[in-house]
Each structure stands twice: as C-alpha cells, then as structure tokens.
C-alpha cells in the first residue's frame, strides 16, 4: 500500500510539473504567433489599400463603362492617369450611392462585390469611409433666414481660423415665360474668413426683398473652404430632394419613391422635370437647358429615369440643381457629384465579434478636394 502511494505521489508530481511547463510555455508561443499574425494583417491591409487607392482597375473607367459587377476584372478606385492618391468620383458613386440602381441603369458595387473583386471574400471584412479634411458645418443664423453661420473645424473638432470661405447662394423660382411656367435661378456670392473660433458669417438677406414677390421653389448654399490649399466643399439646402446622380458627363434623373413620401401603386403620379438645370462649378454657376424633357414615371415602369448628356459636366461640376413638379407642387432637386462623407462596410465597433483588426488612414484627392480615407480590415475567422 505504501509503495502504491509513493508511486501515485510521483505520478501526481510528474503531472503537475508537465502541466506547469505547458501552461507557461504554450501561451508564450501562441502570443508570439499572434503578434506575427497581427503584423501580417497590417501588411495585408496595406496591400489591399495600395490596390484600392493606386490602381484604376480593369477596365480603368469601370465607374462609367461597367454596368454589372462581373464586368469589372480588377478593382481599384484611382483615377485613370490621375495624380497619386487621386480617386475617381464616378467609381466612388458606384460604391456608395444606394439609390443608383433606382435612377440609373448601373448596379451598385456593394461591400460583398468589392470583397469578391479583391479576392478577400469570406476571409476578411472591411470598412471604407471618406470624410472631408476640413469639417464644414452650416447653420442658419438666428436673426435672418438668409444669414448663415459657417464653422470650420478639423476632424478632432479643433476650430480652424483664417479659412477663406466662399459662399454661393442659389435660389430657384417659377415665373411665367410666355405662356408657360419656367424656372429662373438667382445667384449671389460672398466671401468671408473664419475667426479665432473657426466661425464666419455670410449674409444674403438683401435677396429677401428681391425674392419677396416670387414663387420661390427653394434655395441651396454651397460653401468652398480653403485653408492654404487644403480645400473642402459643403452645401446646405432647404426643402430639396436628392433626385439625380452625376456619372461622367451624364446627369441621371430618376424617381425615388421614398423621397417623395408617396403611397399607392403609381407612386403619387408622374414627376415632371423643368428643362433648366443649374450646374455648379467652383468658378461659376451655368444654366443649361436640357435637350429633351420627359415625365419620369415610377420605378418598375418603362421609363424610371431619364439620362441627359451635358457638355462640360465631366470635369468640374460639383452638383446640378433643377426643379421638378409632382402633384402640382414644385420642388428643388439636387444631384451631387462630390460626396460630403460616406462609409461602406460594417463599422468596426468594440462590441462587435471582430477579434482583431487594423486601421489605416490616407489623405486622398477627389475632384480637387482633400478627404481622409479610413480603411479598417479584420479577419472573419482565425486559423
């Protein structure tokens, strides 16, 4: 009996010794391997981001030429023959504009498509976000409807003084032109410089008298902020509808039923488009008369959208402003070219089941304006 106890004690001691060694050794080995794997995730993220930001893809103009995702052989957001880290606006619209399928003949290139085109589907998850380098906030000042407070801050909410602010106020009204109603645009421009608090005021109240007797449809304020060459653009509108998309030199105008808040089989009746469109560029606002104007009928019908090819739209136009008529009401509609900010992919949150992820930030150029591009990559499974 005593002999058995001695052997049992020996065995237990032996087991304890092995367990202690294993418990100490294995976590050390695993933590080393995890460290290397995290480093690999960083390299993987940089490789993917290099591909996204520096390659125009194949075909290089896929933002305009490709209708479906399978037509894209190589994914990349860079502008063909553009500068380093200059992104193609037409490609950006294809990945973030959710209503693109409703009002154009193009498909949305969503996160799943992007992951598949990059060859990371099922292995990595990612998010991509674009935000202007200068954060421009526009508010109506207390005293007047046409007086605005513009605040410019950094990403970290630090006020930026001495920013040159150019404010363009565009108003649309309806008036008789011969026997028909026609759209007229009034444009005014002001300059200001932000103070120590990053705030500047622009006052367009002198327009209120001029517009008092007019049948006002709506207005839009466009702000260009320039801080020693770092440029951002922002806009603010009253009672407008996002109703169009600019792709290359094409203006697509369509019918998004949710925006009109209509019910019923026919979506609240046809939408009639007025032929005068104001194209906003950094230098000017040009009024273009559309070649043909057709009523836009609801989604699912034979004519859910209308395409206009407009000369000069391709290079500099930031937005197109036009007037639509629906159920007897006029409404100002805006088609943006330059995004204010967007995010694609699931955001990386601390509460999410994502084990480890890496985050990269680059400054990119979109149509002459600087943006932060944030890219986060994480593994969907660990081996």
């Amino acid at each position, binding site marked *: *009996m005593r*002999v*058995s106890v*001695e*052997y*049992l004690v*020996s*065995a237990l001691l*032996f*087991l304890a010794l*092995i367990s202690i060694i*294993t418990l100490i050794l*294995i976590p050390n*080995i695993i933590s080393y*391997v995890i460290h*290397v*794997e995290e480093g*690999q995730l960083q*390299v*993987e993220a*940089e*490789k*993917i981001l*290099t*591909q996204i930001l*520096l*390659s*125009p893809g*194949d*075909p*290089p103009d896929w933002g305009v030429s490709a209708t479906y995702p399978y037509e894209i*052989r*190589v*994914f*990349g957001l*860079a502008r063909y*023959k553009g500068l*380093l880290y200059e992104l193609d606006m037409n490609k950006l619209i294809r990945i973030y504009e959710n209503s693109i399928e409703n009002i154009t003949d193009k498909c949305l290139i969503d996160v799943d498509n992007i992951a598949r*085109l*990059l*060859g*990371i589907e099922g292995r990595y998850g990612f998010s991509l976000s674009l935000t202007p380098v200068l954060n421009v906030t526009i508010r109506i000042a207390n005293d007047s409807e046409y007086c605005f407070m513009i605040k410019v801050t950094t990403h970290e909410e630090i006020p930026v003084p001495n920013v040159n602010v150019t404010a363009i106020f565009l108003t649309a009204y309806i008036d008789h032109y011969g026997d028909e109603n026609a759209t007229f645009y009034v444009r005014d421009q002001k300059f200001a410089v932000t103070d120590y608090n990053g705030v500047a005021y622009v006052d367009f109240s002198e327009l209120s008298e001029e517009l008092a007797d007019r049948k006002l449809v709506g207005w839009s304020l466009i702000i260009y902020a320039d801080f020693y060459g770092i440029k951002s653009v922002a806009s603010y509108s009253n009672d407008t509808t996002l109703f169009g998309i600019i792709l290359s030199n094409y203006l697509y105008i369509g019918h998004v039923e949710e925006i009109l808040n209509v019910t019923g089989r026919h979506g609240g009746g046809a939408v009639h488009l007025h032929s005068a469109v104001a194209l906003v560029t950094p230098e000017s606002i040009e009024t273009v008369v559309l070649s043909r104007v057709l009523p836009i009928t609801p989604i699912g019908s034979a004519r859910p959208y209308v395409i206009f090819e407009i000369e000069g739209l391709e290079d500099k136009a930031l937005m197109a402003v036009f007037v639509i008529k629906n159920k007897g009401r006029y409404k100002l509609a805006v088609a943006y070219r330059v995004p204010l900010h967007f995010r694609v992919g699931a955001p990386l949150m601390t509460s999410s089941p994502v084990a480890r992820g890496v985050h990269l930030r680059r400054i990119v150029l979109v149509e002459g304006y600087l943006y932060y591009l944030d890219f986060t990559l994480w593994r969907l499974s660990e081996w």
Partner: protein
Amino acid sequence: MSSAVAHTICFTALLVFSIVIVQFAQNIQQKSVERAAMTCASEIALRISQDIVSLMAIAEKSNSSKLVLIKKINIPTHIANQGYVIKLTTMNGFYVVVVKLDMWSWIEAWSEIPVNSSSTNIIVMLEEGSLTYENYVIHYSSELLSGAKDPVVWLVKDGDRITVGIGVMECASQ
C-alpha cells in the same frame, strides 16, 4: 500481493504515463513548429504578393508607356529547416502566391494578388522564359525554389498592358 508485484505494476504504470506525457509534449512541440512554419510561409507569400501589388501600382501611376521594374526579394532559404517552393498560380479566378514546404506538403500558405485572372491589362506570368534588361537576364518561371540566388519580382509595362512575375536575376557578363 507482495511488494515486488506492487512495485512492478506501479513502475509500469508510471513508465507508460511518462511515455504518454512525452508523446503529448512532442505533439505540442510539433504543432507549435508547424504553426510557426505556416506563419512564416504566409509571411513570405504575403510579402511577395505585396511587392507585386506595389510594382503594379508604380507602373499604373507612371506616365511612361514602356517600363521595366525589378525588385530583389529577401527570403529565408529555409523554413523549419526545410526548403520550400514559391509558386504563382490561379485560385478561384484570382492570381495567388503559394508557398509550400518540400517535406511537409500539408503546410501551404497563399496570398492573393487582387487581380482577376481574366484581366487582359494585367497579366501575371505563369510560363517560363527569360527577359534581358541592359546587363541583366531574368529567368522567370511560375515556380521559384527557396535556395535560388537573387530572386526577384519583375514587371514590364508596354502601353496599357502590364506583365508581372517572379524569377531569378543574373548579370549577363558573368
């Protein structure tokens, strides 16, 4: 039961237990080495695919219509005391860099090049041949052995068409 029988039974049990424990420890060590080898192989695959993507980015952003880019790659001669093969191939419609160990064939790491193999503008060279550039000759192939001298990633741009591959570089005058 005599003391000698008890000794024999317990000693045998302890011996078997010791052998099992040693085997278990060896298994853990083997798994650790394999995982480290796998990590090392994926690191090599990842670095080579990153080099290829970087060269493609430089070429695509370059205004030159004709361009040759060569980048030497520093890779270890062994992983876990074994030689390995670097291979360019296609997988699920994409070009990939595969690193495979000679002896442990089950250890195979790969890293994709985000270029669809149907692309006509960007081609990853999967054939054998040679390329002469000034004093240098690049012998390219879809496979590269770990012990090869002067392994390189190379790229040739001709108009809008980019061809990229791996190979070994040697000086023509040697």
